[in-house]
């Protein structure tokens, strides 16, 4: 196989990435990762590793300069508020923000705080940060214990919020974050086989893994993750394979375009599902996928020659 040849998987990943990612042509993804206080060295290593994996996964989707990672002494409230203020000024209506809070939290019965050096990030801080972004459907992940306390104050159809616990009373250190981060590079989490990991897929994967962990230990679960807001299925967090686009074979490019077009038709059909009888839906879906399958087969043949 020559160097200019593109593997089938890579081609498909290219096509599907373009199809699945919901940002418009000029939209940008801004990722902020905050590694909070660890307390114990073991937690520190774990949080750092998770944060690094998120940064790597995000790099498959956006430029390095749009990924910001705060940890250690840098992760102060002042620095974070300044960063988010700057970010909200930089972003436009089409852009999306993904904010990851990796660490410990506390809830005193009234207010949730994310633990960082110096003053903690408060619930109001987080609310203001998320409200400050222009546009909508921004994403906040909080993997800390008691993070469920954020649900009520931050919940909003126009933002996607994931917490590791369902309320502020689940105070044990959580496992959810570890599994959520694992999902970003796991084929097992790619439930619709489109080579991308969406928020919805990563959440489903992590939630199942946490359940299985507690079951396997014969313990009652001490954490129950929650997701709120719309658009989690359309928000991609990571791409599993590197994106390589070939411009060498015009026929392949033409076929790719056809597949893309069919994928859009499938998406459209799926949105209209309730308007059709099941038999009609399946018949139309089958016809489209068959068409796509034939084209993919031709692409395979062309790229393996």
């Amino acid at each position, binding site marked *: 196989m020559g160097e200019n040849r593109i593997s*089938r998987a890579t081609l*498909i990943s290219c*096509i*599907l990435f373009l199809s699945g990612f919901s940002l418009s042509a000029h939209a940008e993804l801004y990722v902020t990762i905050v590694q909070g206080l660890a307390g114990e060295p073991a937690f520190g290593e774990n949080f750092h590793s998770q944060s690094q994996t998120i940064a790597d996964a995000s790099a498959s989707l956006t430029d390095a300069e749009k990924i910001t990672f705060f940890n250690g002494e840098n992760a102060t409230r002042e620095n974070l508020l300044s960063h988010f203020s700057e970010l909200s000024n930089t972003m436009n209506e089409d852009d999306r923000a993904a904010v990851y809070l990796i660490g410990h939290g506390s809830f005193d019965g009234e207010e949730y705080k994310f633990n960082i050096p110096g003053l903690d990030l408060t619930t109001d801080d987080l609310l203001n940060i998320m409200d400050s972004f222009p546009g909508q459907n921004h994403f906040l992940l909080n993997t800390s214990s008691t993070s469920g306390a954020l649900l009520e104050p931050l919940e909003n159809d126009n933002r996607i919020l994931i917490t590791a616990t369902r309320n502020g009373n689940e105070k044990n250190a959580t496992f959810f974050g570890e599994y959520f981060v694992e999902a970003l590079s796991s084929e*097992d989490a790619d*439930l*619709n*086989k*489109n080579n991308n990991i969406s928020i919805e897929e990563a959440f*489903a*994967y992590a939630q*199942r893994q946490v359940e299985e962990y507690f*079951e396997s230990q*014969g313990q009652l679960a001490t954490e129950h993750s929650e997701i709120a807001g719309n658009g989690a299925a359309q928000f991609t967090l990571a791409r599993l394979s590197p994106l390589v686009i070939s411009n060498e074979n015009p026929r392949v490019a033409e076929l790719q375009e056809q597949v893309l077009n069919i*994928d859009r038709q*499938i998406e459209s059909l*799926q949105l209209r599902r309730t308007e059709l009888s099941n038999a009609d839906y*399946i018949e139309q*879906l*089958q016809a*489209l*996928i*068959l068409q*796509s*399958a*034939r084209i*993919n*087969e031709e692409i395979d043949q062309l790229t393996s020659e």
Partner: protein
Amino acid sequence: MKATLYKSINRLAPLVACSAILFAAHTQAKEHLLGALDNETLLNCDNLYWSGQSLDANACYLSIVRTVHPPEIQAEAMWALGDLYTADELLEQAAQLSPDNAMILVRTGELYNRTYQYQTAYNFFNQALTLEPDNAWAHVGAAEALSSGNNGEEITAHLQAVEMYFASPPGARLRAMIMSITSVMERDLYDQARESLDQAWELVEDEDLPHMQLNALEAALAFVTRRTYQVQTYIDEALNEAPVYGDAYAIPAYFASITRRYAEAGEFYQKAVEVEPHHWAAHLELGQNYLRLNQITEGIRHVETSYEGDGFNPKTLNMMRLLDTFTENFVDLTFPNPPAGDGIPKLVLRLDRNEVDVLSPYAQELAESSMAIFEERYNFPAKEPVIVEIFPNHEDFVVRSIGMPGVGILGVTFGYLFAMDSPTGHPNETYHWGTTLWHEMAHVYTVEATEHGVPRWYSEGISVYEEWNTGPIPGIKIPAYVLQFMAEDAFLPVAELDNGFMRPTYDEQVIVSYMQAGLIFQFISDEYGHDKIVDMLYLFVEGTDEVTAIETTLNISDREFDRHFKQYIDIQFGPLLNNLQIWQQDLQATAQAYGAGSWEETITAANRAIFTYPEYVEQDSPYIAKALAHAQLEQDELKFETLETFWHLGGYSARALKELADEYIARGQQTEAIAVFRDVHYADPFDEETHGKLGDLYIELDQPEAALQEYMVGLALNPLDQAAANYRVASAYKALNDPAQSMDYLMTALDIAPQYRPAQQLLLELSRAGN
């Protein structure tokens, strides 16, 4: 502070242990005062009641309530009329008016006994005894209250107090004697029961006391000693004296039930409620009995009747709760389906809706294969369908079995029907549900082949012996702590082995007895042949006792048998038992080294433990730690060999077996991998990954039907990756030349993941094949 009767029976449940059945079952019906009170008006009403003039009795009690009488007498009338709350209030008033009257406290205690609030009842009896330390009625009442728990010594002390005190009223003496006789009969000490009954008859005749309770006990004794021709005579005697005395039937019914003769128990209970329609405890027992006999509708009807009449009984409430879920959540699968020529299925699996798709293939396979094996080994074809109920909720299973929660049992066989825990009822690795099913199925054959005449230890012993010899994980498996008891020579003489199950004297004795019983049959099989076990079994049909059965079949006395068995144990286990301490130390050292991450040390200690007792494959087996240590040291071949040996010896840790199966797959040993995965299912069938891998292996070996079963189970487990699970089913259907089914599942997969390339490829293939 005065206690108050309450109907929130669920609060009572934890206080009441199973042994409450003994006396509580009889207290629902009105009990004879036997001279406890001497109010003439009240006794007249009672006489009307016992002579069968219920309407007149009712009017008589009402007249007491409506006219001027002391509150304690009005309380008795309200009690007789069924208004227990008012009876309680009146007794409270009476106690305030006469704080030194011990009998008011005694009767209050009896009222609380009647409502299953045994601790409160006991407190009242104690208060009475504080006022009058020799009050025999208080001693008897206290003994009854204590019988709800495991309080043997205290009960004996109270009953002895009644016997020893010269002035104990004859009626109280009779009640104490009846309690003792019942207890003796429960322990199968029928000769002793006979002697005690004779003494009781003397008392009754000398003191001109009612005979009905003794006649009921005589009927029960005649039943359990197989003098069935005398049973009805005694019952008739009791009914001649008191036509509404439902216990004339309910007492023999109770003994039929505890000796597992459920059909006869049901007949007795049925007659009990015909004689005394308000005998709510008999309704409950009848309902439970119907449920054991798989007559569900009738069972529910009587449980509901019991609940409507007596909302105090925690057993009734537990059963009502169970029945709510039982009728809604369980489904029946019959096999073969459709049935053979006679139209009657051989097997019914009654499974929870949420588990039916996962458990049914394996439960069917185990049940059918065990039935075929036991039919041949015990020369007994099942005469009715065998019904297997598997409960995901352990407490539901326990309530279904014995009426009360909080008991650590795994399975219970009633005859052709048995109930057991699902693996989801035991979320840890120690439960092997396949073995439990096998164990219970063996009971079906030993119980039914002997028409329910087999002694408990004999049936348990055969079930354990069959686990070891024909079960899904063969091999003699003895828990480590039982070995310690074996080393201390704790086994019972064979003639007393039933006591180890029925009346254990230490916590571990039931399990020790299981192991002893299993080893006894291993011994008989090895020394005399399996046929002797079968020959002996059939002697129990005629009521032969185990000592005679041994003498008849093996031509040795039970004492010689015990001596030979001990020699057998010495030969088989002597070297191990002599080195037990060393083995235990090595086992402990293995665990410690593993915990400390000292892998070489783990392996060395494990090897020593394995050398002493190579067959030990329980969950703390040294093989597991050794394999894990080899893995840490990247000694893959040694890890594989260790796991393989563990499996060959009957090791059943699902995690270890899954590791081994993966090793076999990596080595291309698909047949062995399949065998291991199948064993995993009998320990943990709820692991979707295992089903997927096993299905893939079947596909590789061109066994699409088996693959389809595994893929369908995997799908039933609601996997995260629905697209892949549906695609697998579609591919199996395609291999089975069923394009329509294949397309159905395939389109489900593609609807979830339109760009799923293997599924797209299969769509192309189906499309081209169709054109």
